[in-house]
């Protein structure tokens, strides 16, 4: 599945250019136009010619959406365990794969969350990262996104989750599958507290992420051209023999099918999100939510019994 999620860019112009000044030019992952790297970065990795939105890191996403200096990452030290002892014959064990992913990406998990502000509005932000393990949903990603929702409830912060994921992490089996239920429940707790949830779908958002929290937003914003769906294009073609028409499962396809509220280019996302949150928080619900808070307090009492488990062998 990884080949579907090949890191799109940057590709360097050619060997000669690479030798001369590797960081000066990048090639657009869609139209192949040569772009001046500094301008491309300043445009948040959007191609000036064709508008292609290349993938962003968590840091890029934070810079794009949050007010400068407002980001405070939480629980960045959570690490995956190997709940199944997943060691398939002839393939990398899960423990080895985690180590490889960390080495290749420089990241330690496929999501980060924390506090920040958007145009002065306090928010809880969680960002999934395609660069680590194809953004797959496992226990740590599930835990971080769940805590983002709970932070939203506890501090009455609007919650923004930016998704980019190949789906559930197979190597965690049913533990990964049940993160979908855990996150749907956490999103419901936020809904009960009447705090807005803005879900941003980026390329690609698939499988268990689409089938859980990512599509439960009060407002769902998709990035232009992003592939968004339940079954990925390859699965659909393999299973049904259907050849997908051009443009199937893009953000624009989902807009015309009534599945997302807005398709918004990167440069306009921050302003749009701020406006939506301000409007949704402008009603009277926020004053009337003591009951909702009590509901969550009761609901989360059991959660505090969760204990961190000791590190498992091999990949500390």
């Amino acid at each position, binding site marked *: 599945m990884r080949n579907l999620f090949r890191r799109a860019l940057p590709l360097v112009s050619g060997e000669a250019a690479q030798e001369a000044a590797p960081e000066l030019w990048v090639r657009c992952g869609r139209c192949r136009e040569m772009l001046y790297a500094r301008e491309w970065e300043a445009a948040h990795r959007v191609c000036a010619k064709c508008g292609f939105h290349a993938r962003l890191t968590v840091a890029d996403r934070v810079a794009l959406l949050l007010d400068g200096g407002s980001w405070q990452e939480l*629980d*960045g*030290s*959570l*690490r995956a*365990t190997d*709940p*199944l002892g997943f*060691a*398939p*014959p002839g*393939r990398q064990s899960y423990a080895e794969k985690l180590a490889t992913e960390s080495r290749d990406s420089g990241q330690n998990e496929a999501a980060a969350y924390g506090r920040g502000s958007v145009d002065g509005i306090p928010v809880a932000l969680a960002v999934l990262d395609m660069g680590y393990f194809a953004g797959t949903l*496992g*226990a*740590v990603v*599930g*835990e971080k996104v*769940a805590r983002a929702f709970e932070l939203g409830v506890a501090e009455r912060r609007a919650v923004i989750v930016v998704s980019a994921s190949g789906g559930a992490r*197979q*190597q965690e*089996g*049913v*533990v990964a*599958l*049940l*993160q*979908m*239920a*855990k996150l*749907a*429940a956490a*999103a*419901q707790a936020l809904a*009960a507290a009447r705090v807005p949830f803005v879900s941003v779908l980026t390329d690609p958002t698939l*499988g*268990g992420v*689409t*089938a*859980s929290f*990512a*599509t*439960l937003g009060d407002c769902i914003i998709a990035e232009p051209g992003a592939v968004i*769906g*339940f*079954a990925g294009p390859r*699965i*659909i073609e393999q299973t049904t023999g*259907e050849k997908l028409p051009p443009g199937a*499962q893009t953000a624009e396809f989902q807009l015309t*099918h*009534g*599945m997302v509220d807005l398709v918004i280019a990167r440069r306009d996302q921050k302003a749009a999100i701020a406006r939506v949150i301000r409007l949704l928080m402008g009603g009277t619900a926020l004053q009337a939510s003591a009951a909702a808070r009590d509901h969550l307090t*009761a*609901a*989360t*009492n*059991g*959660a505090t019994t969760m204990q961190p*488990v000791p590190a*498992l062998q091999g990949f500390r």
Partner: protein
Amino acid sequence: MTVLLDFEKPVGDLRTRLDEVERAYATEPTSDLERQRASLKADLAARTQAIYRSLTPWQTVQVARHPHRPQTLDYAIGMCTEFVEFHGDRAFGDDRAIIGGPARINGRAVMIVGQQRGRETRERLERNFGSPHPEGYRKAHRLFQMAAKFGLPVVTMMDTPGASPGLADEERGQGWALAANLATLATLPVPIVCVVVGEGNSGGALAIGVGDRFLMLEHAIFSVASPEAAASIVWKDSKHAPQAADALKLTAPDLLRLKLIDRIVPEPVGGAHGDPSGMITNLRTALSDELDQLVAVPAADLVAARYAKYRRIGAWFDQGGTPS
């Protein structure tokens, strides 16, 4: 017609011999034939028990998919004194891969929802092999809400290779339909008991499988993806499904050990397909027991406990960096 799985062959031979002896005994009941019959019967029971006690995960997958295994409708009809099947999602159509409606188990009115794979080719096609479309999940959603409205406990039965992955399903928002069910079940103010009766794969199973108690029949499987799909992700080749079945820990005993399910419902010796009515009795007993306990709990406590149960799933460790 008897369908024999590969690993059942030794039992099949014994059964053929027993049938021969039974026939001979019927025409001429000698004491020698009676002795032979008794010894063959004992042998057959012992062999069957031995085989089924040590099934490999991949063999369990075969049993879970056995064509003669009882399906949701068999349980709905067999366990319940009354069952009215309701149809349609009130928006698009009636998906026959999901069935449901109000029913009565041991005198108690409940709402039943489950996947139905079908048996003969024609029925299997009509039911899309138990892979529901979005309208199926939306029918389930309608029934869940109706259960809440009338205070009926919900019983769900999972038996699906996964949610249908076609272009039409994508156009109608398969992911959205699944997510809506997860969210609704998470806070539904009535008791919910979920049972995997056959194969319970991926979000397609989970979308009717969130509740207060999660049961599996002894030889059912529950997995993040079908072994074939997981193999094509991990090995890039679905032929490694047997190894994937091993690695995924998808059997009931493994999942109970990992504390990811609540209870195993025992199957008759030789599997549910060998004795459907025995299986139906076992499941009715287990469900009645679970429902008796859950209906005593106030709805608010039920929903809070359900939240806590799912909230604590997932092991991680803190490398001790940022305090929060």
